[in-house]
């Protein structure tokens, strides 16, 4: 669906196939930003279609867009559009595809979203079970009481 016009014959095009079957035609130098893809190309030189089994088309499109556009301004605006679930899935995609710039941008963005949230919110968002005993948790909250005041509502 996100097919792009072929460039002049000198720049090689590659096809990436997302987990839901969506195909993306990208220039070789764009694809190489994904170190995982680079490794695949290094191993199988003549390959033209590379499967990306862990990433949905929706997220692969965003990742490719990011690589093409990346600059400081874009970074700042980029993460504002996505909800917490998308940010996490994009982070998983960037981690799997091994794109360090995008990983950093997303880690920072997620940190910013949770920086003034309660522990309950954080547990919900990351699906973490609270394995502290009630006494342990009470002790932690009491020790640095001030840190638990004034948090954003969930």
């Amino acid at each position, binding site marked *: 669906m996100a097919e792009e016009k072929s460039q002049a014959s000198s720049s090689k095009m590659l096809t990436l196939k997302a987990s839901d079957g969506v195909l993306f035609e990208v220039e070789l130098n764009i694809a190489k930003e994904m170190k995982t893809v680079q490794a695949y190309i290094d191993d199988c030189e003549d390959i033209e279609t590379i499967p990306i089994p862990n990433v949905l088309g929706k997220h692969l499109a965003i990742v490719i867009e990011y690589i093409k556009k990346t600059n400081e301004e874009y970074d700042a605006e980029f993460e504002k559009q996505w909800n917490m*679930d998308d940010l996490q899935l994009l982070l998983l995609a960037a981690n799997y595809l091994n794109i360090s710039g995008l990983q950093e941008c997303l880690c920072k963005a*997620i940190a910013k979203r949770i920086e003034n949230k309660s*522990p309950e919110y954080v*547990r919900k968002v*990351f699906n*973490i079970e*609270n394995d*502290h005993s009630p006494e342990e948790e009470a002790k*932690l909250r009491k020790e640095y009481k001030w840190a638990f005041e004034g*948090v954003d509502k969930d």
Partner: protein
Amino acid sequence: MAGETAWISHYDEDMKKETVDFNLELDEEIDKDGSAVSVDIILPDDLLERILSYLPIASIFRASCVCKRWHATSERFLLNPSHLLPQKPWYFMFTSSDEPTGHAYDPNLRKWYCIELPFVGTSNWSISSSYGLVCFMDNDSSFMDNDSRTELCLCNPITKSCRKLQKPPGMSSDYGALAISVDKETHDYTVAIVKSKQVPGNFFQWDISIHIYNSKEEAWVTPLTEVLTGWRGGEESVICNGVLYFVVYYTGGVPPENRHALVAYNISNQFSQASLSFIHIPCSLTCARLMNMKEKLVMVGGIGKLDRPDIIKGIGIWVLRDKKWEEIVRMPHKYFQGFGEFDDVFGSSGVDDLIYIQSYGSPALLTFDMNIKQWKWSQKCPVTKKFPLQLFTGFCFEPRLETAP
């Protein structure tokens, strides 16, 4: 040879679950009803740790409460903060003149916290801070000949650990300036006190003595005593790059140049008969505040009117380079006016790249970021002025867990 199997990772199983959920419209406010999260996304621990490493310190305290693993990671980060982003320093503002209670401002989250300092004391403290430790000296005992009431104590405002230090030997003084410097590698610290006492019967002469305490030796030495003519020390000093700087004030009537001067004393050279060197102040000031900003000496000064040098008309910031002052910036008039009434003396301190400035008459707090040259008001302090003569003072400090007194 990377075969097909290398690409079918352990995520495959989860993806099958997620694909179905993604056909739903993901609500922006996904947590509103709190009944269920529509997608079960599990980030691996190394990614969660990276996210944690981008949090400000106060958030990491909260993060330690999430689960045992996060508690272990948070502790590790708090005790080895080199793995965290550099944090902007906080500012503690006393909100009562009698008690050590107050509010600490966290510019990373733009929040005020109600924090109690771990000792009981009264007003009129000299305060100096370095790398998470804050040193307090009680100035009130100076009028008594009996030195036994001079209090000197060292604390970490976050961990609340606190320790009384033995006082320097010698005479009581009319003025005392305090400075502390913590070694970032070893966590050893040096405390310096500059005492000034008027020579009895002589209006112009002052006995100056410098006392240095080293945490390794746990002892005071007095490497220098000198008599100054026409100048006295005050309560403003800082240690920067192994050099003790303190402000001196002209007492001889009409000053030859400016009312203030800076004196430098090289602490590391105390065994080689180092003496005091005088450094001129760049212009006529009503008040001078010194601070160590990444081992550079920075001065925030109240600029006096030309015809009335004791009346403040603005504030400037200078840095000392090769014994010469370089002007960094002047406070734009709108910020100066924003304080309302501005006395000729004011409070200012800073760490790393952030300078705090406050007028003693109100809890308004202004910051200047030296890196991006930006002025910014803090969030409004949750304390209001209760009576007309109430004074607000404070100090800048780094929130750290890894240093102890």
